[in-house]
């Protein structure tokens, strides 16, 4: 099969840029990376066939600069641009500018991005198509707020109309909290999206966050590639995703798939998108939003379907038809993804800066890692602290969980605090292990994690003391043995090899 394009530019960085570079390599397409000054030595730049500098470290002047990216595309002769996720991926203006430059945008049509980018407009459209939406306003929250909010009820969520990624969101439990929360949400929305419009939804709690993956070609074929449960979140942002969603009945799944299709049919849809829903504890689902791009967690769906979503996105963008094998695919087994962030889960998942030190990834059966960094990679503070995604696939959920536990135990990341310890805790957390969890898991059950236990303390003490005693010695040479308690001399001896 001939390559869909000769050259494709990737308007992104980190692991998703690496993911798209790999897809290009497999499709026989020359990949063009772009990089800011902070990323000149980054992994995606090393791995691409070519790389184009697009500006200084600040995202607004590089990865968010339509002009800089289009100039790089023209310089390198790119025939297509894949935007990845985040940055300009859902920016209708960017997609339009790309197509105006005669370059193919790998994603839904620009008008579709525009229609779904306004979350409030999307609520109206979707509600009109008889898809259940989260109860709440269909118009912006105005002044006086009490009129609209009385209908919505409390607790409520204030949300940015142009929003996404958890920004511009505020929970309000009582009417008197509204003015301050609205001001804060509007300020955050204006700063993040340049649009201060805020609306209100009833807070669904407890709720699961479940999303449906869609793929459509430009010839009218649309396929629903199963769902993903993304309820493990901190700051309304996902940490863990799995497919199939635990304990979801056939009827509910069918109803959600039907809702997802209806949402897609309200627009001129093609390429890849995800319809997000909340599930309440009575088994009702409510449309949240439709993301018109590849999701971070697309690999979960790839593992259970055996498909390559990025390759399919590129083929669809080149005008190819979805083959029968894709339209009739059946999921197999169970897949889980955990996101490895440079964040401190013992301190409210605060992002941390620094440079990656050791970088040892797990291997063997059923394990996949999509990484954006490697040993000794500096982490620019300007960008998202996602280091890598660790994905596992097993015959069923218990097998996948056991594999995830094993894979996490094989992973060693030095230099910076990561959320690895959170994930390792999660695997053995009773509710998660049983598949019984919702979006309250992180705030209610993890909080800032367990205290350091005596076994860990003892191990850390031994390792630290031994490391100091052995710090002058060459690697693999002598071993240090403590035959005595704290305070005595550490002896060095040759290990028996």
């Amino acid at each position: 099969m001939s390559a869909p394009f000769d050259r494709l530019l990737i308007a992104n960085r980190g692991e998703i840029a690496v993911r798209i570079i790999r897809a290009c390599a497999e499709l026989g397409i020359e990949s063009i990376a772009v990089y800011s000054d902070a990323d000149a030595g980054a992994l995606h730049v090393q791995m691409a066939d070519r790389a184009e500098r697009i500006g200084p470290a600040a995202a607004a002047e590089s990865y968010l600069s339509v002009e800089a990216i289009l100039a790089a595309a023209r310089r390198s002769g790119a025939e297509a641009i894949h935007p990845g996720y985040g940055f300009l991926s859902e920016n209708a203006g960017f997609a339009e500018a790309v197509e105006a430059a005669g370059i193919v945008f790998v994603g839904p049509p620009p008008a579709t991005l525009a229609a779904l980018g306004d979350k409030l407009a999307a609520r109206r459209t979707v509600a009109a198509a008889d898809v259940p939406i989260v109860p709440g306003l269909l118009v912006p929250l105005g002044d006086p707020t009490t009129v609209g909010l009385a209908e919505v009820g409390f607790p409520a969520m204030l949300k940015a109309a142009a929003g996404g990624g958890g920004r511009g969101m505020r929970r309000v439990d009582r009417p008197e909290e509204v003015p301050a929360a609205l001001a804060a949400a509007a300020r955050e929305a204006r700063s993040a999206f340049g649009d201060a419009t805020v609306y209100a939804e009833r807070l669904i709690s407890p709720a699961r966050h479940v999303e449906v993956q869609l793929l459509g070609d430009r010839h009218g074929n649309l396929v629903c590639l199963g769902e993903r449960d993304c309820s493990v979140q901190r700051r309304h942002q996902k940490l863990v995703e799995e497919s199939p969603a635990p304990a979801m009945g056939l009827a509910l799944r069918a109803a959600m798939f039907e809702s997802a299709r209806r949402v897609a049919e309200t627009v001129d849809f093609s390429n890849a998108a995800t319809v997000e829903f909340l599930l309440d504890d009575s088994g009702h689902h409510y449309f949240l939003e439709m993301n018109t791009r590849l999701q971070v967690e697309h690999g979960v769906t790839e593992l259970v379907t055996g498909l390559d979503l990025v390759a399919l996105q590129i083929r669809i963008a080149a005008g190819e038809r979805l083959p029968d094998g894709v339209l009739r695919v059946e999921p197999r087994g169970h897949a889980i993804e955990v996101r490895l962030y440079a964040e401190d889960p013992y301190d409210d998942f605060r992002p941390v800066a620094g440079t990656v030190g050791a970088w040892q990834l797990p291997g063997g059966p059923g394990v996949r890692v999509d990484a954006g960094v490697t040993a000794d990679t500096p982490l620019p503070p300007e960008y998202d602290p996602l280091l890598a995604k660790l994905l596992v696939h097993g015959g069923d959920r218990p097998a996948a969980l056991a594999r995830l536990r094993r894979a996490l135990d094989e992973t060693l990341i030095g230099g910076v605090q990561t959320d690895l310890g959170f994930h390792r805790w999660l695997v053995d957390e009773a509710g998660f292990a049983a598949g019984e969890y919702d979006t309250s898991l992180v705030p209610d059950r993890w909080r800032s994690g367990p205290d350091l236990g005596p076994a860990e303390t003892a191990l850390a003490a031994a390792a630290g003391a031994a490391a100091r005693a052995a710090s002058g010695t060459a690697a693999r040479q002598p071993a240090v043995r403590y035959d005595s308690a704290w305070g005595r001399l550490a002896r060095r001896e040759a290990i028996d090899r």
Partner: protein
Amino acid sequence: MSVTEIRVEGHLSQIDDGWSFAWLDQARGTARLSRDGRSQIVLVEGSGTDWTVTLGGRRIAVTVRTWRERVLAEAEVAAVAPGGPLEITATLPGLIVGVEVTLGSEVRQGDPLLSVEAMKMQNEVRAPRDGRVTTIAVQAGETVARGALLLRLD
């Protein structure tokens, strides 16, 4: 090297018997720690007295100080402390085995004040600066908790 004090996340700790330690890649801090035939890979980064041990993804600060380094560090703290009365407190929980000064004694920086047995080791508490002993709060044979007042210097 004789190690006299180990702190894990700031708290005094001790090492159990029989650990064996070997670097796998010292430059990146990977090492193998074994005991009773069981081993595990740990990540240990740092140098000198300050180390970070990563266990199960959690970065744990470990301070490893010799007697000399501990005295110097404490003297440094004392040196920057403002003048006036100084309280000497127990840095480890332990047993007072000897009191070397009497009420009203004039002492010089570095003079021994008390002997405390802690974690199977006998440690001398020395004067962090010159001064006169105005209070002696303990006596030999007494057990003290960490942070307990031992004596005051003027």
